Each structure stands twice: as C-alpha cells, then as structure tokens.
C-alpha cells in the first residue's frame, strides 16, 4: 500500500511538472511575440483573447489541422522520428532541475525535483547530445539542400559550443564540489555562483545561446540564406514539435543557468518554486531582449569565435578556478 501511494505521488507530481512545462512552453511563444512587438514599437498579438492571451491555443489548433506533408524522396521513418527526438530530449532536461525545497505531503517528504541524481550535469549534456540528432536527422531526412546545409551547420555549431560550455560548467562544479544540481543549489545558499564565477556566467550565457540555436547563433535556421534551414520541409504537427522543442530549450537553458549561477530556488520571503520561476523568466526576458538587439553572425565568424575565443577563455577560467581552489 505504501508503495502504491509512493507511485501515485510520483505520477501526479510528474504530471503537474510536465503540464506546467508545456504551459510555459506555449506561453513563452506569446511572451516572445509580445516582447518583440514591444521592442519594435508595435503591439504584437492582440486579436485572440485579452491582449492575445489565447494566441498559443489558437496556434496549436491551427497546426493540428494543417496538412501534413512528407516529401516524396524523404527518408520517411527518420523524417517522423527527428521532431520527436528533438522534443523529448528538450522536455527531459526538466527532470533534474530542482525548483523548490522539500514539501510534506501524506506523511512523506517530497523533494521538488523529479529525479535527484548524482550526475545531473552530465545528464543534461547527454540529453543535449541526443537532442542535436533531432536537428541533424531532420535536415538529412528532408532530402532538401537547404535543410541539409542547415543540419550540417547545426551539428558543427553544437559540437563546437558544447566544449566551452562543458568546461565552463566544470568550473562551477569545482566551486560547488558536486555534480548534482540539488547539491549545487545547496552550495549557493550563502553566496550565488554568479559572484564566485562571473566569467563563467557570461560564458555560460553565450554558449547556452549557441546550444539552443538562438540569435546571434541561429545558424541552423537562417531565414535569409537557408529559407528556414533544417525544418524547411516540415509542416503541421511535426513543425510544431520542432518549434515547441525550441521554446522548451529556451526555458530549460534559463532554468539551468538559474540553477548553476543564480542560486536556484533560494530566495527570501517567497516560496522556492516562485523564486525559481521569477529568475528563469527574467533570464528568458534577457534572451528575447538580446534577440531583438543583435544581428546574426556568419557561420565562419561563429566557428572562429567558438574555437579561438570561447574555448581558451573557458579553459583559462577553469585553470584559474582550479588553482584558486587548491591554494585556499
């Protein structure tokens, strides 16, 4: 019986988190369109609901009823598999992110984290590695030159920026002394990592932007030169899945940076999950703001920047951190 209650709590908790995540994903599209409108001195979506609040739901219904086209020469199985892979890997990241302390329900202490594992940092890198297959395979399977070039750029970008990102996060791990996210959050209870590791914070934001393919690193889907890149042949729900994966990444990268540098769910007065959401949404705001400010870089500039600037700087940051940690 106890076991059944445990399972029931786990299932309900998982459902709440995933429904919440999907809602955030849906409304982050609205958030982005509203903010971009604001930055460009227009209103953004206004027609559906109060200030366009029902727009994400209208968009979802629209994409359900669109015609689903699969190109004649496409690799059908891989073509269908790619958006699923992208979306599942984007969703899975939320499992290891702590968004609150411990809650007491039904005589049990429930930690507000889906899976409190030892190697959460490695887990997100593993998921990122698998998720990049979605992009690459989608581009390959479409049998389209534009999407193939988009896919190749995507994989080049992800491989080049995963390295400095990992080195940056290792510096944070060194400071906190653990690979688990809940451990890292607990280590920041007194002083946030952004104070201890300011360089790493900036590097993590840059590499994070590249990992989730956002401006100025949105190489895989440059509208002006690749006609939308790897997802050019996708339509209907399959396109929506890529789209949702992208916005899910936007939220999860904000959540990861919040967890690693901004003290996670710690904060005065308000409960943990609220603080977590405030910090993550503030970071999302920053990412959208930055998108409307900067133009897109060229692919060779991105590669040069990644290998010749970010990698040495993140290595230097790691070495300095290690030396300081050993001396003190």
């Amino acid at each position, binding site marked *: 019986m106890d076991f059944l209650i445990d399972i029931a709590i786990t299932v309900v908790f998982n459902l709440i988190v995933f429904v919440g995540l999907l809602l955030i994903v849906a409304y982050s599209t609205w958030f982005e369109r509203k903010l971009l409108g604001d930055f460009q001195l227009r209103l953004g979506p206004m027609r559906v609901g109060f200030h366009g609040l029902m727009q994400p739901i209208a968009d979802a219904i629209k994409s359900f009823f669109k015609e689903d086209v699969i190109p004649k020469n496409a690799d059908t199985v*891989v073509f269908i598999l790619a958006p699923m892979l992208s979306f599942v890997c984007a969703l899975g990241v939320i499992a290891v992110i702590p968004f609150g302390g411990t809650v007491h329900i039904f005589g049990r202490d429930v930690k507000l984290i889906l899976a409190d594992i*030892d*190697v959460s940092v490695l887990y997100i890198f593993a998921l990122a590695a*698998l998720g*990049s*297959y979605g992009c*690459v395979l989608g581009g*390959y399977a479409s049998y389209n030159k534009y999407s193939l070039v988009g896919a190749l750029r995507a994989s080049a970008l992800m491989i080049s920026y995963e390295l400095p990102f990992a080195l940056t996060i290792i510096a944070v791990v060194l400071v906190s002394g653990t690979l688990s996210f809940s451990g890292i959050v607990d280590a920041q209870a007194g002083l946030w990592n952004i104070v201890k590791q300011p360089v790493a914070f900036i590097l993590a934001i840059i590499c994070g932007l590249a990992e989730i393919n956002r401006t100025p690193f949105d190489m895989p889907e440059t509208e002006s030169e690749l006609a939308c890149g790897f997802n050019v042949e996708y339509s209907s729900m399959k396109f929506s899945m890529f789209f949702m994966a992208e916005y899910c990444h936007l939220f999860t990268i904000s959540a990861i940076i919040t967890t690693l540098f901004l003290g996670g769910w710690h904060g005065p007065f308000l409960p943990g999950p609220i603080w977590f959401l405030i910090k993550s949404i503030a970071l999302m705001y920053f990412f959208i703001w930055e998108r409307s400010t900067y133009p897109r870089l060229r692919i060779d500039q991105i590669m040069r920047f990644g290998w010749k600037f970010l990698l040495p700087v993140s290595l230097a940051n790691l070495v300095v951190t290690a030396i300081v940690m050993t001396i003190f």
Partner: protein
Amino acid sequence: MLAELMIPVIIFFMAVFFAMGSGVMVVCSKNPVHSALWMVSTLFSTAIIYLILQFDFIAAIQVIVYAGAIMMLIVYVIMLTSVDEEVRRKYRLRLYQIVGLAFIVIIFVELVKTGSSHLTGWEGLDWKHIPETFGSVKYIAHQLFSKYVFPFEVVSVLLLAAIAGSVVLAKKDKKD
C-alpha cells in the same frame, strides 16, 4: 515489495533486448544512416544497462562520448559523402561466410559457458568487499587519478598522437 524488485529486472531485460535487436539492425539495414542510428540505439540501451547496475557516471559518459560525439561525427561524414543505399546482392554462400558463422557459434557457446559458470558462482561472490560508493563519480575519479594514473596518462598521450597524426594527414594535400 515484489513490484519494487521486479521493475529494474523488467527494464534490464527490455534494455538487453533493445541493445541486441539494434545491434542486429546495425548490420542488417541497407541505408548507412539507418545503420548509424541503430548504433546510437545500441549505445543508448547499453547506457540503460549501466544505469541499472548503478553506474550513473559511466552511463552518462557512454551517451555523451559515444552517442553524442563519435556517432554524430560518423553521421556527419555519411551525410557529407552521400552514400547511397546498398544494392541487394544475389545471395551466395561463400567460404569465408561459413568460416565466420562457425566462429560466431564457437564464441557464442564459450560465452554462454563462462557466463553460466559465473552465474552459478553468484552466491559465493564476496559482496562485502565491494565498497558502497562503487560506481559513483568520486570513487571512479579517485581510482583513476591514484591507482590507475599511469595508464590514464599513457592513453592521453596516445590520443594526442592520434590527433597530431590526423592533423598531419589532413595538411599533406595543401603542399602540392
């Protein structure tokens, strides 16, 4: 209580089934990209087996290094060279195929024999000498940088030699 014990066993056998099935599909599928994808599936299932054996670290590294980096490069190369689907040949039994089959049978029988002998010696295994932190990141790091530090460094020099060699090979054409 029983269900608690059964779930890892069920997941274990599913992972084994997927690992072996995708292993077979790597060889059988005609499209090289599909082969590579089945390979990723094999590596992923192996990572799940590691997870069930409590090797969290090894499982994550398996996915990051093999599925994430190495297979990604292989897929990349296949996509760039645009290898077409293999044409189905007329099937004819060759001598080397018979020899290969015989070897497979011999290896399989030997594997089953050693495997089952280890399984029967299961009770005699000394569980107390396995440290509690076995498989954790700290344990592996400690072993790697104290007991096995020499082999570790030798391997890194070997990898460096491989990188230098590939750079030299790639640069060769530019002189001409």
